[in-house]
């Protein structure tokens, strides 16, 4: 029965790569689940300023965004110039819309216990004039959304003399 006699193995056997696809698939699924494809596409261009004293928000679900900056779309840009526009969710808005947005959209999207902890993240372009930002802040105060985050990039603290 020569068929069943095993050959003597020589040297180190090659490691089976049969499970490699499984491992890769596992990683793949992880990244597919982790990836959050943003639902609202940015309509305005935001180059954030940088700051050293940044706080990091762990609970991202508490954060609602207001984007302020010049329009991305060329047609809108031709019409409005480089003036800063306000984006709420997936459309342009004016300062007057903010109170309504807070009350009807942003706040109800959180569950009741978290509504007090809501943080409004202001993603504002570097070159924006403070007039718009101040107006937005005043509206937020009126709407009692008092916790705000100026979204910034992180940098090192500048040195000081002492």
């Amino acid at each position, binding site marked *: 029965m020569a068929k069943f006699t095993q050959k003597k193995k020589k040297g180190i056997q090659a490691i089976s790569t049969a499970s490699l696809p499984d491992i890769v698939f596992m990683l*793949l699924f992880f990244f597919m689940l*982790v990836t959050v494809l943003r639902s609202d596409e940015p309509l305005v261009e935001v180059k954030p300023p940088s*700051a050293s004293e940044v706080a990091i928000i762990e609970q991202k679900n508490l954060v609602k965004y207001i984007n302020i900056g010049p329009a991305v779309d060329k047609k809108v840009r031709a019409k409005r110039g480089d003036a800063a526009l306000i984006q709420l969710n997936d459309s342009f808005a004016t300062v007057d819309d903010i109170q309504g947005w807070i009350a009807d959209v942003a706040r109800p999207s959180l569950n009741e216990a978290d509504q007090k902890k809501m943080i409004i993240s202001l993603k504002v372009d570097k070159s924006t004039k403070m007039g718009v930002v101040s107006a937005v802040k005043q509206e937020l105060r009126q709407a009692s959304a*008092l916790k705000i985050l100026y979204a*910034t990039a*992180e940098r090192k603290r500048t040195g*000081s003399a002492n």
Partner: protein
Amino acid sequence: MPRRTLPEINAGSMADIAFLLLVFFLMVTTIDTEKGILRQLPPPLPPDPDVPEVRQRNVFEVLVNANNDLLVEGEYMKVGKLKDAAIKFLVADGVFSDMPEDENLPLREWVREADVKSQMDNLEQLKAATDNEDKRESLDKAIENWDKKLAAIEFFGEYKELPGSALISMQNDNNTNYDTYIQIQNELESAVNELRDQLCMKHFGISYSELAKTYERLKGDEKAAEVYKRQLYAVRSVYPQRISEAEPKNLGNY
């Protein structure tokens, strides 16, 4: 007809396909953290607000105009110098020892252990005497406040505190650049944080942010977090963060 068996498909390239998809998702994924300067806005003003009178020396005034120029305490200043000026204001005439008084800086007042203890005893007695729920709550808050000062004395010894009305006030023009605004906010905050860092390093051997992080991590476990909480309160009562934003104005180009 002879029966043909389907040839087995070679699965060797499966890994390659999966890798391709994996790389796509790796590139698309942005695990971006929410970072920024966290601020609490003041609640909306009542129609006729009571404006408390504040002594000039107790206010560190920062004005920014439409050309992004800074006027600090009436003097033109570069952003880079702002932090040192703010630190000088916050330290004033010394924190743990008396330093010569400067008439443009606030006067820190000594917090004595005996005073704090007697104040706390008084409040405790008041609390025991009252049955009013609301009053009790406000008394509890007052006691907690004194307790924070006591914590500071425990860790650092007796210190001088900033007068209650001392604050850093910032006012900007409607045409000020947002970038400038953030840089100024950042410098002012970093002044406070730097002082806190120094104090923490000296007494606890870790930086302030490290201390805050440790507390955040242990928050669920009250017993373990207790000591860190007291340390945090102690540091905060020595160097409080008082950055106020005045209502915006059109300051024009002066």
